[in-house]
Every structure is written in C-alpha cells, then in structure tokens.
C-alpha cells in the first residue's frame, strides 16, 4: 500500500539522470539572479503540487543542512 503520510526519501524518479539533466538545462544561460529566481519558482510550484503541510514540513527538515 502507498504510504502518503511520509516524505519519500528513497529513489522515486524514473530516469533520474534525465531529470537531473532537465534541471540543469533549465538553468542554462541564466545569470545567478535568474537562476535563484527560477529555483524559487520551482520550489513554490512543487510545494503547491504536494500540498500536504506535514509532507512539506518533513521536506523542509530533510533539506536543512543539519537535520535534527
């Protein structure tokens, strides 16, 4: 059964290398400021897709440099 209460931290993207290449390609030719803005928009778009506040909290924790 699918676990929807926990943030997925195991491999979950089909074609991981392709996704990573897409991510880099999105930043191609952008200045640092433009890239920062793109990242910010991307975070917001993905966060809205997830929607679930508890998952988002877990994601914020997982992304923090020193997770407690």
């Amino acid at each position, binding site marked *: 059964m699918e676990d929807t209460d926990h943030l997925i931290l195991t491999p979950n993207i089909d074609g991981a290398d392709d996704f990573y290449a897409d991510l880099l390609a999105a930043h191609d030719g952008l200045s640092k400021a433009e890239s*920062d*803005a793109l990242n*910010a*928009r991307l*975070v*917001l*778009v993905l966060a*809205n897709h997830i929607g679930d506040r508890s998952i988002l909290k877990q994601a914020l924790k997982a992304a923090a440099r020193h997770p407690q």
Partner: protein
Amino acid sequence: MNKIFEEPMYPYSRHADQDAARPVRHKVVVIGAGPVGLAAAVDLAQQGVAVVVLDDNDRVSTGSRAICFAKRPLEILDRLGCGQPMVDKGVQWNVGKVFFDERQVYEFNLLPEDGHKRPAFINLQQYYLEAQLVERIRELQQQGAQIEIRGRNKVTEIDAQPDHVALEIDTPDGPYGLEADWLIACDGASSPTRRMLGLDFVGRVFEDNFLIADVVMEADFPTERWFWFDPPFNRGQSALLHKQPDGVWRIDLQLGWDIDKEREKRPENVIPRLKAMLGEEVEFQLEWVSIYTFQCRRMEKFRHGRVIFAGDSAHQVSPFGARGANSGLQDSDNLCWKLALVLDGKAPDSLLDSYDAERIQGADENILNSSRSTDFITPKSEMSRILRDAVLDLSEHHPFARPLVNSGRLSVPCIHDGSPLNSADALDGPARSRPGAPCPDAPLDDGFLLDHLGGEFILLTINADAPDLIQEAGISVRRLALSTQANTHSALKERYLGDNASAVYLIRPDQHVAARRPSYDDNLIRQAIRRATGKE
C-alpha cells in the same frame, strides 16, 4: 468649506465637578474620545453605567486615519446604534488589484458570503465614525443616560489605588481632581496613561513609516483596492490606493524606517511622488498628509487593577489588514459587558481578567498576521525577496500562487478557543460557531440574527425546547427560539446546526458563543452561565 474635523464637536464648558470641595467620584472614566473610547462610553451608557469621557482635544480626529471597517466591528456598531449611518455613508468594495513592478499581476474579488446584514468591509474616514459616536452620545443624553464628554480636559496625573483611581485634570479654567471606580485608557499608541503609570509597551517587532495622503481627485478610478509591490514610483516599497466617500482617495506610500519625516511631509516632496503614481495629467488636491510611524507590539497585560487599556494604547500593529480601529472596537465590545456586570455586583472583578486573556489572544493574532504581511511586503533578506518576487511572478499566470500574496490579511474576529468563559463544546456542530466564536450572522424571516441578539445574555434554541427566561446567580438569560422549519433560509442550519437536528446556544452579551449543546439541560446551562460570568 470647513471640514468636519475643523469644528469643535464637544467644546469645553465648565463642569460643577470643577467647583466641588473634594474630587467627585464617578463609576467609569474613559480617557480618549477616539473610536474606541467613544464606543466604550456608548456601550456602557446603553447598559445603564454612568460614564465620563475626557479628551484633551474638542473635535474629531484630523484626516482619514483608520479607513477600513470590517464586518464584525460594523456588527458591534449596529449594537451601539451607529452601524446603519456608517454603512450608508461608507464605500463598499469587493475588487482588488495587485501590481508588481510595472504591471498588474492579478485581480481578485472578495466574493463575500451571502446572508450577512453587513458587508465584508466599508471604507470610511475615521472622523465620520467619531462624529457618529458623538451624535449617539447626544442622543443617549437626551434619553437621560448618564454619559458625558468633556473636551479640553487633559489628564496630567493618575494615582491608581486598589479601590479607585484618582485623576488630576488640566482645563482652560485650571486644574481639578476627579476619581473613578474604574478607568479605561483609550488614549492611543503613545498613551499618556501608560507613560504616567510607568507601564511598558513590550515586544517591539519592527518599525516602519508610511506617507499617508488624502487626495481629492477629478479622476475616475474605480472603487477598488489597488496595491503595488515595488512600483517604479516607490522603489523597494509598497503603495496602496483606496477610495473613500466625498471623492477623497486614500494613498499610503511605505517609506521604510530610516527617513527624515519632516522632509518627506513637505508638499514639494509629496506631490512629485503622487504625480508619479497617479499620472502627470491627473488633477488632484491634497487634503491631508501625515507620516504614520508604527511599531508592532503590545502591553504585557491590558488590565492593571482598576485601570484597563483598550485599543492602540494596549497594542499596535502595522496598517496592513486594517487591524487597528477594528481590533480596538472588539476590545471595547469584550470589556464593557464584563465591567457593567462587575459594577452591578453580578460578577466578581476577576471576570475582567478574561478581558486580558481574550483580547491579548486577539492582539497576538493581529500582530502575527501583521508581521507576516510585513515580511512579505518588506523582505528582510535577499532570499526572502527572491521568494517573494517568485510568488508575485507566478501569481500572474498561476492561481495557486495568489493565496500566498500577502498585502495584508484583512481583519477577521478572533475565536476565543480556550477562553476561561467557554464551556466544553457539547455539539458536533459547525466549527465557525464553536464556543469562543463570534456568532455568524444569518438571515431570518424577520431580519437578521444578530439584530435579535442585542447586547444581553441569550439562550438561542433551534428546534429545541427551553425556558423562556433563566435566572442564574443574578444573570437573566432570555430565550430566542428559532426553528429551521419556520425559517426558509438555509444559512441558520448551515452555520449553527450542521448535521444536528437541534441545538441550544448560550450567547454572551458581546455575541460570542459561551456554550452549545444538542438540547437544553438545566444544570449544564446554569453551570455555563456561571462560567461565562467568571463564577466557576
């Protein structure tokens, strides 16, 4: 033509108290004839409490100041006999536009919920509210109520004793003394009362300055709220354009915290800013310009023995979200019935501690909302600006980002969850009418629900039996019997019953729910009445 705020509205006249051999004692003295002080005085007088309002001025406030009045405060003003003229005079608006940099990113419609007597908001200059309340005081005086307003009576000393408060007052005829059983300090953000009593105003969160201008314009801007983030005419800051009655437009330009106030206020500096905003070709006249500096903070406690603070004297927030006068009116609404019961010997004075608990909760909610708006409007770090700009960019094309845009979360009343006056929720009913919540309005066959509640304890029964009058520990509770069968409107059912067939609500004089159950239970309702009056 003279403006309403240029005429003395309660001119000084010598009072017999000034010739008394020793200071005359009054039940309640209110310091400050702003919206909150005047509302408190009207409320108390309507409940038969003698009250004296002192103000160092003799007229309503200059300039528009608080301009946006939300539904709940309008409902409170209805109870005070001032709601209708406010709504008749005020400007109603539903459409807002949000601009970022040089472009409009989106527009919204508030789409207020149907079935409420009062609109979500009206725009009206503060001086009209004050004038309306003064008129109401005159009306109450004619009906024999003991309510007075003494202009040019400046309080210079306050001696707070355990059983009374002694005041020294300066007038054009010289000083005199006065005593009060209770003192309500509604003397504004820089409250002299607070200073004289040496009380702190703690928790300063941030400070900002706004250039506030009332502009009379020929131009025909629509009746909408326009908000700019980082516009070309006010780089790095925000701007707001709002319509008021009489062809007056209100413009707020954020200036930041480190500015030369006197310089910014000069017409030669103001006019170019406004021209850049409105367009070179627009003809306008400046009616009033002011620099508004605010901090976001509150007193640690609002009640200090027999001195009680209400409105800006107790708490200050940013102007985003219209939470100043709106929350002050809710302070007064919360306080006055409690004070009237205490003065009448029908409740212990510890009931007033619930004012502290409930209105500090309200102030904290306002400060939280207002701090978040400020963080969005004035990002404090590079990354917070990048995220803010990303939200605004996305909002232009994607609806999901629009709820994240924060140009002020407009004032909604506080739900007093956990208040010591609440009884445990015994109805699996709608969350919006749970104990601690202000009663949502609902249309009935003969008007609106809130008009039937008035300003006393009410037992609202919906499809349920109960005594028509309950007397408990000196408190009379009148029954308001409604039935969803007789009532053709569905709002009452949706807002008070949910899936239940019947319900019984104990409602406080400030129209907040104290208790609710599926049916009448004599013991439990009596217990709830005692609890709601500080006796349990």
